[in-house]
């Protein structure tokens, strides 16, 4: 199977085949081949022993549809995957939209309860100005405008319980 995998904005072509007796696999990554001893420890976790003897336990969550998250010992990385000829899936992004153009949606980054709404519809706000305060785990978290604009919509109201990703306000 050949896959196109995007990590950190860079695409690699990965061919994976069974090599010799189990549990060996041959990987060809961007033209370079290596035989690897790979064993699945549980549904999401792999133990890899590379040709240089180095041993790595790596957990991978997600799917080709939604993108994968790889738990390395140093940090977590997201990866998008396509089989040859298919579209690459979007790496899983964070909860907040970019600083680019278009309306900026202020979304709940975690489940919680709206404590205060700091602005009103039609109000001008500066980048970094507080919009909504959401409480979760006994800490109040002020969500701020990612850029300057006018508050177009407010979906949040004090006392409202919100799920992660819920749109609380729109600034344009």
């Amino acid at each position, binding site marked *: *199977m050949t*896959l196109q*995998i995007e*990590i*950190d904005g860079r695409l*690699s072509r*990965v061919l*994976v085949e069974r090599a010799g007796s*189990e*549990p*060996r*696999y041959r*990987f060809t*990554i961007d033209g370079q081949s*290596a035989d*690897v001893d*790979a*064993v*699945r420890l*549980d*549904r*999401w976790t*792999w133990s890899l022993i*590379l040709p240089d003897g*180095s041993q*790595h336990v*790596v*957990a*991978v969550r997600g*799917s*080709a549809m939604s993108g*994968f998250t*790889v*738990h*390395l*010992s*140093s*940090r977590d*990385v997201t*990866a998008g*995957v396509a089989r040859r000829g298919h579209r690459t899936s979007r790496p899983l992004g*964070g909860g907040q939209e970019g600083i680019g153009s278009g309306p900026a949606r202020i979304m709940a*980054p*975690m*489940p*919680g*309860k709206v*404590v*205060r709404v*700091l602005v009103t519809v039609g109000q001008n706000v500066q980048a970094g100005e*507080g919009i909504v*305060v959401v*409480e*979760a*785990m*006994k*800490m*109040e*978290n*002020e969500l701020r405008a990612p850029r300057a604009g006018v508050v177009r919509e407010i979906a949040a109201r004090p006392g409202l319980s919100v799920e992660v990703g819920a749109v609380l306000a729109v600034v344009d």
Partner: protein
Amino acid sequence: MNKILIANRGEIAVRIIRACREQGLQSIAVYSECDRTALHVRLADEAYPIGPNPAVESYLNINRIVDVARQAGADAVHPGYGFLAENDAFADACREGGLIFVGPSPEAIALMGSKTAARAVAIRAGVPVVPGTTEPVLESATPEELAARAGEIGYPLLVKAVAGGGGKGMRAVDSSSELLTAVQTARSEAHSSFGDSAVYFERRLVKPRHVEVQLLADGYGTILPFVERECSIQRRHQKLVEETPSLAVSRTLREEMTSAAARIAALAGYTNAGTIEFLLDESTGRAFFLEMNTRLQVEHPITEMVTGVDLVAAQLAIARGERLTLDPHRLLEPAGHAIECRVYAEDPDANFLPSPGRITHLRPPAGPGVRDDSGVTEGSEIPVFYDSLVSKVASWGSNRPLAVARMARALAEYQIRGIKTTIPFFLRLLKDADFLAGRFDTTFVERLLGRHAGDRPDPLSVEARTIALMAVALQALHSEAPVPTASADGWKERARFEGLREWPTA
């Protein structure tokens, strides 16, 4: 004293239940709806529901908890930390209900729990305090009045909950424009955390260290202070890492701080376990009284590791009316060095946002010199209703570099999935040159985060990228058409894997 109700949840409830078991005491857990299957419930001898999830309706419900304690035949109540631990009305309700409160008297809690009254005690004890308002700021104060009071103290200042602790209900203010929001936020957080929205103002020292002195006091006038804890590694006044002893405290300063702590406790008529917090100005070598925490401290394990004293067992003994017979000198001579890292369900790569959720996989650290005080088990749900502490990892070494190396080893071993935690932050911190040299103060973490704010995410090494690509390819391969993994025991692996799949393949 045979039966203790633990009016708390999470790791501290587990810690106290363990102490009860070791002391031959029956333990009673209480739980809100979402905590029915929590670890503290599973480990207790008895368990009773005390209400819905919001803390004000359960873990802060004084009447309900006292009723349960009496109905269950408890002799005593241990409040842990947080929730009702520093609530004098609760201590009083326990006393009225014929229950031993494992902590100081309601009067001592009220006195030292009021940050403003506590400052007055410290002044009487001849201990320097940080400049600030001597009385709480009135609820009815107008914005102009607030600005005037703040102006007297001078900026930068702190708005602090009078009933506060643990960074809850506290806000830093650099200039007058931020004052109003800060007061509002602090009041609101103080109300939801402590049921008391009163706040006061205090001068903010420039780059102080936060150093504290644990003490035990029995009912017969014996007050024993312990070697200090260094707690400067904090963010938004929430402690992240503590260690003992402090590299910044000389033998003379230790003597000065511990005797100051004992004088304050004596004047306050204090009994049981408590902690006096100081701000240490390294440029002048002066330590200022900050506040007293009238309960067991989150970071008590590191003191236990370097002195061999079981502080929870000591609390229970004092509550039973026993005398302290510990050797005072040993408590001031730490054996080796201990560090604690607080593993919070927060995302260090997203501004420490709370990360509630279910722990899908857990392998806690273990082995020599490592202690994990955890409130969870695999499958536990970290609810949004309470604070985000998951577990406390403490390490001991015969010196600081060994304790640090051991902590790094333990955290690298700690597998916890399903939620984000502060572990990756600690792994970076433990390699920081300034941290390793002991050069830090309470502003250190914000600076460290600021310094690295631009360069996230760390670029992957070639090897790390290769491994990630391989793992993703394997997972993609096997999630499309699950096949057994390769191994000498092909069929066993197959059985194991199928046991883990949610649905059989067509």
